[in-house]
């Protein structure tokens, strides 16, 4: 039964690919059914009605046994519920959002493929299985970002996303190889990992494995793909680049925490990477004008939080925040998508304004999401963020202050986009004519808004599910600091953008995203381009021309020279004959 989790979306993707690409209705039906089946199966698993099946041997050779199986522990169950639930809602939402797109048949097939890969990551029992689905998630994300392939920017963004992920996967694969070579297995087996304990390879393995997370969860320095990935259709942004795929990196860290915890050095690196990413992304987010980009940077920033939490050994806090973030970030993206849908894909917040009055439902739900993200007490984001800050304060105080600063910035930029986009007067023609989106998009928004409110409370049971113990001592400093931060951020946002009709604060460094893209363009891309051109030149001229054709030239030159001897002069021939005959005689009898 549990195989349905993987099989249903895979079969759906395959059917759509083979048969239904040109038949949107059939493809929608198949894909949504598949997603519903996975959701129901996930519920069944969570309720303990469905057991994990026996593993199948995928590769079985001496020295390497790779199984395709299912881990259904509490970590996986929680993640399954969140992913399949959000995915199902997004499938439904896409019905409305993509209703007019001629290629939506293909779209739903790719969504199914993504869902299958994502579930694969969650249930994997070993590193290789995780790597397989890890890569597949990258592929489906490539396909979905490049869904509007005729747009140059989308095509480029897709490629960039895949490559950045590939670089991360390179490290991930090396980490797997290191782990396997030391521990002799690729299974998630804490007992086997003891081989790594005290070994000088432990930090190396841990950090290499972490590379996978850097790529997938868009941590600095491989984060550049995530904002560009917003070129994809908005449901994709919501599903992949907010709620699920990018969270896979954090999930992976929790899953392999038994390796990470062997090396405190590696944990610090992880925590600091997370902290810096959280801060930098939040800073950038304050200066972006594209509503989806703001959300993208905020996603990055929140992922930084989670990574920070893992680095501080707070996997429970990380998973908690991952779940609540999944709900409210999906909500925010879908709300933004609803706005874009109404505004004919106008994404600049300065060209919106007053949308809130035209689209009350969207505004209300978006507002709830924004408040949750900002960490306003009483909403889910507050609880989970609190947990992370608590963890950080206990193990790495410096990071705690960074995290608190980030919290203030988060409140600030969320206030900014909400105020600018939804309140005030419409600033453009399209904004004036905005209409509320259809109900098929509205219902998922309402459900998610509900989840975004309640998911943090103890009665909802996420923490309990993760098996967290109430920690005895809780510093009062943490709630105080975070509350202050949120209030500061809100006030600054409200003051700064209360009635703004244009940008008042311009910080080029932040607007240009710390020049990451430019630096990469100038260094890595240029360098690679030049190196490629140089090597191709060497290959063509030194090896292909000079050596190969030079060799051929030498041979033909030798031929030309020997030809001079074959001039047809009888007397020369006779002389050579004499030389030859004399030579042979001397050779035979000369001793």
């Amino acid at each position, binding site marked *: 039964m549990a195989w349905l989790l993987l099989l249903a979306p895979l079969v759906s993707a395959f059917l759509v690919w083979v048969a239904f690409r040109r038949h949107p209705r059939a493809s929608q039906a198949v894909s949504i059914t598949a997603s519903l089946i996975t959701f129901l199966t996930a519920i069944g698993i969570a309720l303990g009605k469905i057991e994990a099946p026996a593993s199948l041997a995928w590769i079985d050779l001496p020295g390497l046994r790779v199984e395709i199986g299912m881990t259904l522990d509490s970590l996986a169950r929680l993640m399954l519920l969140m992913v399949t639930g959000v995915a199902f809602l997004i499938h439904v939402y896409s019905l409305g959002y993509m209703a007019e797109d001629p290629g939506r048949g293909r779209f739903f097939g790719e969504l199914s493929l993504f869902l299958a890969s994502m579930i694969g990551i969650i249930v994997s029992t070993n590193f290789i299985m995780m790597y397989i689905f890890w890569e597949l998630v990258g592929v489906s994300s490539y396909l979905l970002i490049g869904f509007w392939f005729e747009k140059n920017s989308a095509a480029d963004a897709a490629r960039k996303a895949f490559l950045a992920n590939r670089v991360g996967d390179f490290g991930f694969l090396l980490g797997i190889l290191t782990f396997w070579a030391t521990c002799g297995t690729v299974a998630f087996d804490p007992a086997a990992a003891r081989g790594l304990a005290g070994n000088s390879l432990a930090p190396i393995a841990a950090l290499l494995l972490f590379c996978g997370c850097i790529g997938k969860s868009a941590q600095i320095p491989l984060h550049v793909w995530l904002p560009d990935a917003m070129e994809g259709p908005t449901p994709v942004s919501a599903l992949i680049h907010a709620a699920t795929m990018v969270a896979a990196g954090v999930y992976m860290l929790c899953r392999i925490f038994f390796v990470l915890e062997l090396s405190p050095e590696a944990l610090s690196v992880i925590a600091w990477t997370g902290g810096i990413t959280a801060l930098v992304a939040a800073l950038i987010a304050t200066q972006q004008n594209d509503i989806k980009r703001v959300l993208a940077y905020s996603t990055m920033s929140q992922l930084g939080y989670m990574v920070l939490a893992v680095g501080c050994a707070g996997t429970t806090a990380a998973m908690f925040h991952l779940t609540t973030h999944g709900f409210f970030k999906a909500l925010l993206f879908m709300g933004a998508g609803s706005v874009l849908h109404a505004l004919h894909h106008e994404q600049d917040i300065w060209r919106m304004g007053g949308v809130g009055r035209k689209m009350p439902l969207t505004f209300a739900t978006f507002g709830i999401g924004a408040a949750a993200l900002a960490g306003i007490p009483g909403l889910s984001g507050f609880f989970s963020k609190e947990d992370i800050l608590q963890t950080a304060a206990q193990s790495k105080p410096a990071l705690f202050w960074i995290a608190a600063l980030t919290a203030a910035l988060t409140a600030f930029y969320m206030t900014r986009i909400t105020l600018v986009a939804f309140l005030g007067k419409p600033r453009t023609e399209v904004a004036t004519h905005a209409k509320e989106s259809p109900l098929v998009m509205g219902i998922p928004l309402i459900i998610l808004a509900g989840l975004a409110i309640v998911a943090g409370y103890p009665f909802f049971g996420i923490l309990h599910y993760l098996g967290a113990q109430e920690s005895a001592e809780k510093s009062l400093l943490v709630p105080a600091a975070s509350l202050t931060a949120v209030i500061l951020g809100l006030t600054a946002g409200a003051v700064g953008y209360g009635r703004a009709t244009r940008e008042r604060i311009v910080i080029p460094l932040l607007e240009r995203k710390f020049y990451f893209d430019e630096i990469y363009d100038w260094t890595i891309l240029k360098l690679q381009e030049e190196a490629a051109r140089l090597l191709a030149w060497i290959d063509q001229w030194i090896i292909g021309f000079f050596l190969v054709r030079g060799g051929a030239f030498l041979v033909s030159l030798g031929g030309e020279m020997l030809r001079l001897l074959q001039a047809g002069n009888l007397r020369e021939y006779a002389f050579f004959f*004499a*030389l030859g*005959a*004399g030579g042979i*005689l001397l050779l035979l*009898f*000369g001793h």
Partner: protein
Amino acid sequence: MEGFLFWFLAFGLLSSAVAVIVNRSPVASALGLVTMILALAGLFGLLGAYFLAAVQVWVYAGAVMVLFLFIIMLLDLKAEEVTPLRPLGVGAGLLTIVLLGIGFWRAIPASAWETSGAGAGEASDAASIGHLLFSAYVLPFEGVGLLLLIAMIGVIVLSKSDV
């Protein structure tokens, strides 16, 4: 006596061969060739091959030399005043002589210097050669006959198909 005859004929043989090469006039060269053939016939005789000596004189000195002289006259060849010998060619020729001379010298097995007695054994006569020709070598003999025929036809064709 035999020794003297050998050295005498050998000297004649080599000097007339050299004469073929060094003489500028084709006619003189041809005459040198004749002398050489005669000296060789003498040596054949000294070796007891009287029949061959006779054939040598008939075929070479008779038929072949006449042909050569005939052609010389026909083409009206003069001494090589227009195309004198070149030092390079002469050097190469001398080198050839030295090289091959040494080569052949070294190639002769030591036992050959002990095999003397040219007088030993029967002098071969035409009869025994003829006997062999018509028994063991009858097929090559016929073949040579055919070759002569072909050559004859070939020569006729060559000289008739003038442009």
